[in-house]
């Protein structure tokens, strides 16, 4: 009988404090569901086989860690508020003869119950939502089960382990609160005044510094390869910075407002500013949590929607013409020129045999070589493995050699060059001097071209590209014939491309693509170890839709979950503060505050408090957009105006939703205080 007492008291305690416990359990349930889904996406093989899938996975893995850290912070914060509200009850138990160990047992059972309920609910929700997502994918992208959400045992285990640990920490914290308090303090705990926190300059400045550092990193990153690593660093800096700034910065702000007597002693500001100042420390934590959730939502929605909306253009970037025949091979061979001509003739033959005609075409070849660009010289002997820590990724570059005859043909200009002269253009921000050296070959720069070679030569390169136009491209390439990289493979790479449009319809294009692809693979000049294929714009479209549609859906799914967590946090905050403020507003009514005045003061307070996170989130988004833009380049997306529009629209939608939530929860608050 006696052993059943504590679980019963614990269960009763939760039931009686349902108004506080239900949002708490609901929030932890959602956190667990999000963690499960993210873990599953990041650590299993659901996201594979599309351009940028590695990045998407990395983001999910990163998101998993964020959710674990974030979940800990948030649950800690809410739970300590919960225990604080119940200290009086525990004090009563202790007066009635329970010792601290017994109270510890009650807390233990309470934690176990919340743990069990939210764990079961969270896992079910996670599994259910991912199943729903699977169906959603199928509907949205019209391809059956392109992402197969199965029940991932490893994710279930990870979720249980991580969140059990978090709950264990929470229990220890609650036990600590009760263990080291005197009975008398327990009884009067909720009455004890809390001194408004002093403005902590150090924390505030540190937070500001971290935030600035994060922003600077985000703005400084030039190249997507470098971006991924730095992006994570920037995100972590910004998260910590946000917490510090919102916690101490907001206290500071309130202090300053209070010093300004003209502002402070106004009916609208007086009550709101002072109560804000008093609870800012705790407020700051939840505001920062809301802010980070909103930022995540904004980032996810704006990036995935930009990818999805821009899918057609991305497709054209990858595959500029209807049919794109490609051949590439490492090393220099004198037979390249001839091989290219054979390919071209063969393809032309196949096209006319098929009964089609070529309406528009681009054909060219170039040589590429990669290295580390420094001091107007591309160092091709550097060993990337040995220098991985000292290398600046922004300086990793690919040089593309192209012949002056092809250059004139592509651009319609009429330029000429002598041996040792070059026309140079660079993407990215690599400086070009009067000469440029690649390995041991030095060229004098005759002219700098600002032509956008990315459009001309439809290659999405992940690193900076320098295009060097020379007189005799084969001659220059042969100079690098015996340069080998650290693994013993030739460094120079030959790329041949023949891209053309035809008068065929979509089906015809796909069929012809198959014929040419087969020809390229099977029939061709004797070049060992070369890669040859033909890609059709039409055929790839399906893949692109699947990939980007899937990502967009994933973005929406996660955003919805985050949004719900956000709403719960806000609701929880309002309810718990409502109970705290109840007596305060009672006093004010006695002193002569009218109901409309109370309402107005509450509105002013909430407006200030609740629009801080969304303002901060928009600021974060603005600074992180350049980096997102660069990350999207990994997916072949290069459309900044669209990204900005998407960001604007998502911020707007988020703002409207936020305003509705705010209205809805402030009514709940109002009902409690009056």
């Amino acid at each position: 009988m006696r052993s059943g007492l504590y679980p019963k008291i614990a269960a009763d305690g939760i039931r009686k404090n349902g108004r506080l416990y239900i949002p708490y359990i609901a929030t932890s349930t959602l956190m667990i569901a999000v963690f499960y889904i993210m873990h599953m996406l990041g650590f299993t093989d659901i996201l594979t086989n599309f351009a940028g899938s590695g990045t998407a996975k990395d983001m999910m893995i990163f998101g998993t860690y964020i959710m674990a850290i974030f979940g800990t912070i948030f649950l800690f914060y809410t739970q300590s508020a919960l225990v604080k509200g119940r200290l009086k009850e525990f004090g009563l138990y202790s007066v009635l003869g329970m010792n601290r160990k017994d109270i510890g047992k009650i807390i233990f059972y309470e934690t176990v119950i919340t743990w069990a309920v939210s764990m079961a609910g969270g896992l079910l929700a996670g599994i259910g939502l991912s199943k729903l997502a699977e169906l959603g994918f199928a509907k949205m992208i019209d391809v059956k089960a392109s992402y197969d959400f199965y029940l991932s045992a490893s994710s279930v285990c990870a979720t249980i382990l991580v969140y059990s640990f978090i709950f264990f920490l929470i229990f220890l914290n609650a036990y600590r609160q009760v263990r080291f308090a005197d009975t008398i303090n327990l009884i009067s705990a909720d009455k004890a005044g809390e001194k408004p926190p002093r403005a902590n300059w150090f924390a505030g400045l540190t937070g500001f510094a971290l935030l600035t550092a994060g922003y600077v990193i985000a703005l400084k990153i030039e190249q997507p390869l470098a971006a991924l690593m730095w992006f994570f660093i920037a995100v972590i800096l910004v998260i910590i910075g946000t917490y510090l700034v919102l916690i101490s910065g907001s206290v500071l702000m309130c202090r300053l407002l209070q010093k300004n007597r003209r502002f402070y002693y106004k009916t609208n500001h007086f009550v709101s500013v002072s109560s804000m100042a008093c609870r800012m420390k705790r407020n700051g934590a939840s505001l920062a949590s809301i802010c980070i959730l909103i930022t995540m939502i904004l980032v996810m929605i704006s990036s995935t929607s930009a990818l999805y909306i821009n899918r057609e253009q991305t497709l054209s970037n990858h595959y500029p013409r209807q049919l794109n025949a490609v051949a590439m091979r490492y090393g220099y061979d004198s037979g390249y020129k001839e091989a290219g001509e054979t390919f071209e003739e063969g393809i032309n033959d196949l096209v006319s045999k098929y009964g089609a005609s070529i309406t528009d075409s681009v054909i060219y070849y170039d040589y590429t070589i990669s290295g580390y660009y420094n001091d107007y010289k591309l160092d091709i002997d550097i060993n990337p493995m040995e220098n991985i820590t000292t290398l600046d990724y922004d300086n990793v570059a690919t040089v593309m050699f192209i012949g002056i005859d092809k250059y004139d043909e592509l651009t319609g200009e009429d330029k000429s060059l002598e041996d040792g002269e070059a026309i140079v253009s660079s993407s990215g921000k690599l400086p070009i001097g009067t000469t440029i050296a690649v390995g041991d070959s030095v060229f004098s720069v005759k002219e700098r071209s600002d032509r956008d070679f990315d459009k001309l030569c439809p290659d999405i390169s992940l690193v900076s590209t320098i295009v060097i136009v020379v007189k005799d491209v084969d001659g220059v390439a042969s100079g690098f014939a015996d340069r080998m990289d650290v693994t013993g493979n030739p460094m120079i790479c030959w790329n041949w491309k023949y891209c053309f449009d035809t008068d065929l319809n979509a089906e015809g294009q796909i069929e012809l693509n198959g014929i040419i692809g087969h020809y390229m693979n099977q029939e061709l000049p004797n070049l060992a170890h070369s890669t040859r294929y033909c890609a059709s714009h039409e055929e790839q479209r399906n893949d692109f839709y699947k990939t980007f549609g899937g990502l967009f859906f994933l973005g929406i799914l996660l955003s919805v979950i985050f949004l719900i967590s956000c709403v719960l946090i806000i609701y929880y905050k309002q309810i718990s503060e409502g109970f705290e403020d109840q007596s305060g507003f009672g006093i004010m009514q006695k002193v002569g505050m009218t109901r409309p005045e109370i309402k107005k003061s509450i509105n002013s307070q909430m407006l200030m408090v609740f629009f801080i996170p969304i303002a901060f989130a928009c600021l974060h988004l603005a600074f992180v957009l350049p980096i997102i833009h660069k990350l999207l380049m990994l997916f072949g997306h290069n459309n900044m105006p669209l990204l900005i529009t998407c960001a604007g629209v998502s911020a707007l939608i988020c703002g409207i939703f936020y305003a509705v939530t705010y209205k809805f929860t402030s009514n709940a608050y109002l009902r409690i205080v009056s």
Partner: protein
Amino acid sequence: MSLLEVSGVKKIYKARRGGTSVQALKNVSFTVEKGEYVAIMGESGSGKTTLLNILAALDKATEGSVILDGMNIGTIREAAMAKFRRDNLGYVFQEFNLLDTFTIEDNIYLPLVLAGKKNEEMRAKLDLLAPKLGISDLLKKYPYEVSGGQKQRAAVARALITDPKIILADEPTGALDSKSSDELLELFSEVNGMGQTILMVTHSTKAASHASRVMFIKDGIIFHQIYKGDSTDTQMYQKISDTLNLLAQGGELK
């Protein structure tokens, strides 16, 4: 005309589902003149707090009227009530009712801020009031940093700062130790000496003995009242005790 005229006030609390109803005030009538210091005494459950709540317009009488300075409190609309309370009444509570989130200074300013008074005006008023109440050094502190007596003095300052027509005090010494109680009562006498009308509800004989008139309330009616006249506090104390003894024994008064 008297400052406060209470006539035929009844208050009946109805149980929520029909059932029994409780008559807290049966028929209460009295007047308070300007500058008077009146104490209302009675045991727990005698209806004195109900009466005070009606006077403070926090509660509505079931029957009867309360007229403050020619204005019938019962006819004031709900919306205007808070403003009326702010402008005409000063309230001192047993539990001080200071807001923890404000400094003492800001707590005192609260009614003025609500009334939309200018910053300079508020400061001038407080500068005048603070030394009299001996709270000049406490202004920047928070309520939980000062003693009960100091809190109550701050609450008195908050009640006085609007220059109310009447101060309503509900067991003002109830939560204070005897030394703080004495100081507070001294303060009340001083404030009254400056012409402030005070109406205090208490069951402390000592507190009541400072008043110029004491009314006894029992079972919802004013049972008896005694005037201090020229008697000293001690004599008054004796009179009150005698009356209370009689009341307790259920005896009839002449």
